[in-house]
């Protein structure tokens, strides 16, 4: 048929082919109402477009159908759609029952063996570590003697590190809540394309983007920690406030609302969010991400990097007074 894929269409882009279909449909007179002169032909409304678009319909249905006229646009779209369906059918013939059966394996013994072996391996290594390494138990609790430094368990030291740089509500409650109950659960509703499901780093640029993001985030976080330790948001704003005569810049409670403080909230929040946008812009510039999934790799990797860097910093690089220091500094020792 005239509206099927013809040999001369090889090597054309789908858009070019769609244009050609449209031309041919017009040449065949599809789209003009039958038995009327051109002058009076009102643009015919597409009668139910569904039978036209239905891919299983033989192609004759479009060109030779008597009755209400089919607009050229619809006929062309149907042809393009037919071609797509044919391509999918050619690529992936439905697996036969036998083939499907061969893709499946019995859970007993295949999966249960793997599960059992991995569980035993983990148990033995944990028992081994438990025999060799003693868990800490220091002196009896004494609420009158504050150890210096006082630290939370390691998986909260990222938040404790954050706490050193901003308002406690922001560091201890708002940021972790927004991440754990807002951003992370929201991921699947934003990134819905299932093309890369089931493959590690499923898009062509995923690895490069993730590696770049991890390195970038690590550098930014270290730079920000060093900046706050060596220069400091508060001293910097203090000197600006003194020089310009704007005391509200360092007011911890402007208008009586702590969450409006420049030093505790606004500046730290900006320093958290601005590098994310800078990262997305850099990625757009360098890697030209193809899909939203590529950006999602970056955002999630940034979160992982932040979790790791802040945990390491809070655990190993904070000593007495929670000052920044090397892990081997003598002031790392806990005193009471």
């Amino acid at each position, binding site marked *: 048929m005239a509206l099927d894929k013809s040999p001369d269409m090889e090597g054309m882009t789908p858009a070019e082919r769609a244009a050609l279909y449209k031309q041919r449909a017009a040449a065949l007179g599809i789209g003009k109402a039958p038995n009327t002169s051109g002058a009076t032909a009102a643009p015919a409304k597409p009668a139910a477009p569904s039978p036209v678009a239905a891919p299983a319909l033989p192609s004759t249905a479009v060109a030779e159908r008597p009755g209400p006229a089919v607009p050229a646009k619809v006929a062309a779209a149907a042809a393009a759609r037919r071609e797509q369906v044919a391509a999918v059918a050619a690529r992936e013939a439905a697996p036969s029952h036998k083939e499907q059966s061969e*893709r499946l*394996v*019995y*859970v*007993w013994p*295949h*999966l*249960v063996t*793997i*599960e059992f072996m*991995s569980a035993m391996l*983990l148990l033995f290594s*944990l028992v081994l*570590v*438990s*025999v060799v*390494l*003693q*868990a*800490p*138990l*220091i*002196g*009896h*609790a004494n*609420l009158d*003697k*504050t*150890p210096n430094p*006082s*630290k*939370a*368990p390691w*998986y*909260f030291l990222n*938040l404790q590190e954050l*706490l050193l740089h901003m308002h*406690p*509500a922001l560091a*201890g*409650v*708002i940021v972790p809540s927004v991440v*754990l*109950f807002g951003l*992370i*659960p929201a*991921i*699947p509703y934003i990134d819905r*394309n*299932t*093309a*890369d*499901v*089931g*493959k*590690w*780093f*499923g898009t062509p640029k995923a690895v490069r983007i993730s590696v770049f993001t991890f390195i970038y985030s690590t550098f930014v976080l270290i730079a920000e920690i060093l900046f706050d330790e060596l220069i400091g948001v508060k001293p910097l704003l203090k000197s600006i406030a003194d020089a310009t005569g704007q005391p509200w810049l360092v007011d911890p409670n402007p208008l009586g609302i702590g*969450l409006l403080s420049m030093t505790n909230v606004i500046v730290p929040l900006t320093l958290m969010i601005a590098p994310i946008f800078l990262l997305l812009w850099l990625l757009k510039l360098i890697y030209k991400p193809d899909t939203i*999934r590529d950006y999602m790799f970056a955002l999630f990797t940034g979160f992982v990097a932040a979790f790791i860097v802040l945990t390491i910093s809070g655990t190993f690089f904070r000593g007495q007074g929670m000052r920044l220091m090397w892990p081997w500094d003598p002031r790392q020792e806990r005193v009471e």
Partner: protein
Amino acid sequence: MMNELRPFLEDLSRGNFRRALTENRVFKAWFRTGYPSTPRNQALIMFNNVFLHLHPVRIRRESLKITYTFCLGGLSFFLFLILTVSGVLLMFYYRPATTVAYQDMKDLQTIVNFGLMLRNLHRYSAHGMVIVVFLHMLRVFYTGSYKPPREFNWGVGAILLFLTFFLSFTGYLLPWDQLAVWAVTVGTNMAGATPFIGEQTRFLLLGGYEIGDNTLIRWYVLHVIALPLVISIFMAVHFWRIRKDGGISGPL
């Protein structure tokens, strides 16, 4: 009665011990399926066993690949089981009162047989569970396994991560040493910074204005009963949902 026993006795007298042992009602009631070496028995054992029925009878071949999952989800659950067993054993020796808790810990380490190892195992498994659950989340993200139809289960997973942190943190106070109380002081002060309801949150967590006996019993009850129950419910939903969403993710 004698009629029913006759085949058993006959087998015994003929020296057919294997048949005497297996071909009777008692054996078949307790071992409902024959050894799973035939497709029929391989299917039956999954149907007839309450623990195995978490799994389907058959799965896609790709799902077996260790470098795809690294068994992280299963190991998270296994760590929970280790923690439950070792935790129950520890409960026999530990009393949640500020006057005795620390001494009970010392006794565990010095007097109780295997007490030191038991405590170490519990503590390292707890750290391990935090790490493995986090790694499991990374695996699910980087393989795109949260995408439709698995959005809901990803959300359940986020709740499970939070509960894992909270379970681990509530256990941190129980040894009642300086490390424990001051870590919890830091943690509850952070929670006390919650906007609008900070004071109330801190009071709720401490059972008062200061860390003490009320805090210990609260965290103990949360740690040994309340949170394990809650996390079990969410784990049940999480596992059931894997089946409903068509098994673990794989290439299309």
